[in-house]
């Protein structure tokens, strides 16, 4: 999509795409380098870090985030953004728990995931049919959904400790690994393949890269966008169900921290907030990278306040790198211009 640029010759510069493959690599695979560096450092400085227990623990804790972030990657690639995932996550959790008090676990889970899917579909409709910017549309939806969750629970914590069947989904062990991890791996792999190997995935890239051109080339851009929001809603629903099954409690809430951790993971992984670029595997690395930082602070007993600061710096670096690779940013020239005086009027 054409963005207007302020500098008189901005379009000239950005049209020039002679940025080398170096920048492109930094953008696509760049996250791997800091991830591996951090992984190695933590392995060296912390005895308990590189243990199977710690690794599985991280994956287990991150399964909800990873599922939502993988789906959110599709939304971003197709040119949207979904800020309602935290609210949908909470809604699915309380729906499942509420139904679980009187119905079977399987039924409760299915309805909860279905509710997430439906909310996602509505998000998609609002964004495409009403042409409301997805940032605002999903933010508004998140308030509505959070309110509904609160109404459903009356503000109470729902407890399912007496329903052991509820724990089966996430807490069963298979080949020595919890099913929450298996479900997450399955969801992430399916979403990764959907984006990278299918026609629908290709259409997502096209819709986010240039919606007008995609439409003229026969891509049903609106349907593709609706699909990405639907997938995102379903994924948030699944994540909510998994976590409910894991902890056997559920509480209404907006879960905005989850929403922003998901977004941070996607962007740190290198998926562009401008649409048209990104990949699920990058998001996985991005989310795990952020998780490793948290894990490292914990294991090394560092002040967790610094963790927030680190995360903020990382985000800025990721977005800056994106702009650099797109040729929108020329730091040298920008700094030089900042330091110059205003030209005098003749």
């Amino acid at each position, binding site marked *: 999509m054409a963005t*207007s640029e302020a500098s008189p010759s901005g379009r000239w510069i950005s049209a020039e795409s002679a940025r080398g493959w170096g920048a492109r690599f930094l953008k696509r695979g760049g996250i791997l380098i800091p991830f591996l560096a951090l992984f190695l450092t933590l392995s060296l400085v912390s005895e308990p870090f590189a243990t199977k227990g710690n690794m599985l623990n991280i994956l287990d804790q991150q399964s909800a985030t990873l599922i939502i972030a993988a789906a959110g990657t599709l939304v971003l690639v197709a040119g949207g953004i979904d800020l309602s995932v935290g609210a949908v996550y909470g809604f699915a959790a309380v729906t499942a728990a509420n139904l679980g008090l009187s119905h079977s676990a399987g039924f409760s889970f299915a309805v909860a995931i279905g509710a997430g899917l439906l909310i996602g579909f509505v998000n998609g409709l609002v964004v495409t049919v009403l042409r409301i910017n997805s940032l605002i549309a999903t933010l508004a939806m998140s308030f509505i959904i959070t309110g509904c969750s609160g109404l459903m629970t009356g503000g109470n914590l729902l407890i399912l400790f007496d329903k052991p069947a509820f724990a089966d989904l996430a807490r069963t062990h298979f080949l020595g690994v919890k099913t929450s991890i298996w479900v997450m791996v399955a969801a992430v792999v399916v979403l990764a393949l959907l984006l990278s190997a299918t026609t629908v995935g290709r259409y997502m890239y096209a819709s986010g890269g240039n919606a007008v051109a995609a*439409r003229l080339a026969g891509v049903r851009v609106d349907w593709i966008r609706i699909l990405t929001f639907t997938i995102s809603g379903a994924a948030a629903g699944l994540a909510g169900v998994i976590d409910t099954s894991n902890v056997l409690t559920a509480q209404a809430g907006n879960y905005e921290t989850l929403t922003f951790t998901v977004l941070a993971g996607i962007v740190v992984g290198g998926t562009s907030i401008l649409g048209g670029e990104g990949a699920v595997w990058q998001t996985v690395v991005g989310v795990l990278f952020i998780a490793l930082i948290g894990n490292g602070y914990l294991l090394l007993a560092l002040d967790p306040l610094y963790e927030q600061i680190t995360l903020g710096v990382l985000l800025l670096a990721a977005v800056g790198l994106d702009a650099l690779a797109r040729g929108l940013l020329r730091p040298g020239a920008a700094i030089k211009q900042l330091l110059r005086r205003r030209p005098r009027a003749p």
Partner: protein
Amino acid sequence: MAVGEPEAPYLELLDVSKHFGGVQALDNVSLEVRRGSVHAIVGENGAGKSTLGKIVAGALIPDAGRVLLEQEPVAFGSPREALEHRVAAIAQEPNVVPQLSVAENVLLGMEPVRAGFIRSRRLKRRYAELARTAGFDLRGDITADRLGTAEQQKVEILRALSRDAQLIVMDEPTASLDARETSQLHDIVRALAASGTTIIFISHFLKEVLGLADTVTVLRDGRLVKTAPTSSESEPSLIEAMLGQPLTSTFPPKSPPPADAPVVLSVRDLHGPGVSGASFELRAGEILGLAGLVGAGRTELARTIFGAEPVEAGDAVLATGRPLGLNPRRSLDDGVALIPESRKDEGLIFGRSTIENSTLPRLGRLSVLGIVRRRAERKAAREVLERCDVRGASFGAPVETLSGGNQQKVLFARMLLCEPGIVIADEPTRGVDIGAKRSIYDFLVELASQGVGIVIICSELEEAIGLAHRVLVMRRGRIVDELEGDEITESRILAAAFADQSAETPAA
């Protein structure tokens, strides 16, 4: 212009070179530009014209060589630095802030201020002064989003003048202007030169260059072929220099379809945004030209038929009886392909590879159960890309790494892959150099000879005359004339396009 004394050049380039990746965009180019002259730069796409312009205007930094301004070596790091040396650039697509007024746009960044507040009365006065000096009749108080491209260019020119620019680089300023706007711009350029401003004029249009410039420089593959006074040059001599060989004819011979060729598309009383009551038929093998001024409704008609704009009344029907104009997907499935007007905004998806761009509308055919068969895709893409003679380092690289002409060819390759029965081409040769133009014409003629019906929106009159079997002239959303065979002449088309509007019932 005074030619007598060997006056020192205003601008001098000495052995300037610039490369992008492995491509040598400029190779040891040396050039002298006299003060107050109009100096044209011509060459094929990718010859290095724009690169040269950008180096002069500070948008690019040369790898080697020197730029001298009034005998002083200069090295502009940014357009802003160039501006401080009174060198300004006007891009093909003007940059204006749509929400601001014309006057505010012109004086953007140098508004008269007191204590941080803009002194708007003073701003208006300064604008009025500027517009009068330049001889422009352009109101300062309307917002810039109401301006056409030509007027936006005037804003840019005024902006350059307001900074007291002595050298203005214009990169294909007339590419998106109609005939009347073009002649206005030419007058402005002449007036600027007469008042001592030096103009570097980059253009594809040789007639324009010959009529306007004092000196012309021809580039080919980044090298300087020659610099000569335009008085000693002609169109054929410039073409020969640009191509390195003489061009026999601009257009391939016409071969209209037989009179009994089947009708492939009938449009009946079609109404849509900017189109009112268009009716015509298209035959198999026919090349139908749509002529008219910019804004006459040609693009809108094409888009409405293709289904990119909603049909308000009437219909467009295929030979099979299927209605068109529903949505682009349906049209493509029914064998109708559109080559849109702007390859960057409406055609290609920058950031994605050339292969992906060419297979996008036919991805369904290249996949099994929704999964793309990469090898089949690559093979199909390579085949059509090679048939369209697309040249680039790698088809797997992002499509924007190709030159402009090659990007246009990618759209043709994509269209071929759709195996269309009807092709609607909206100014397919805009911003394309002469050599590539001829190959696009050949290509369209070949398609027509295979029975494809072609609707072409012509950017230039010669194109309608040289290529189309039949021409429809549009004005204000209506088809006002239909010309066939010998009737297709410049004067007939212009007469219909500009016809006396008072003779019609007033619209208001």
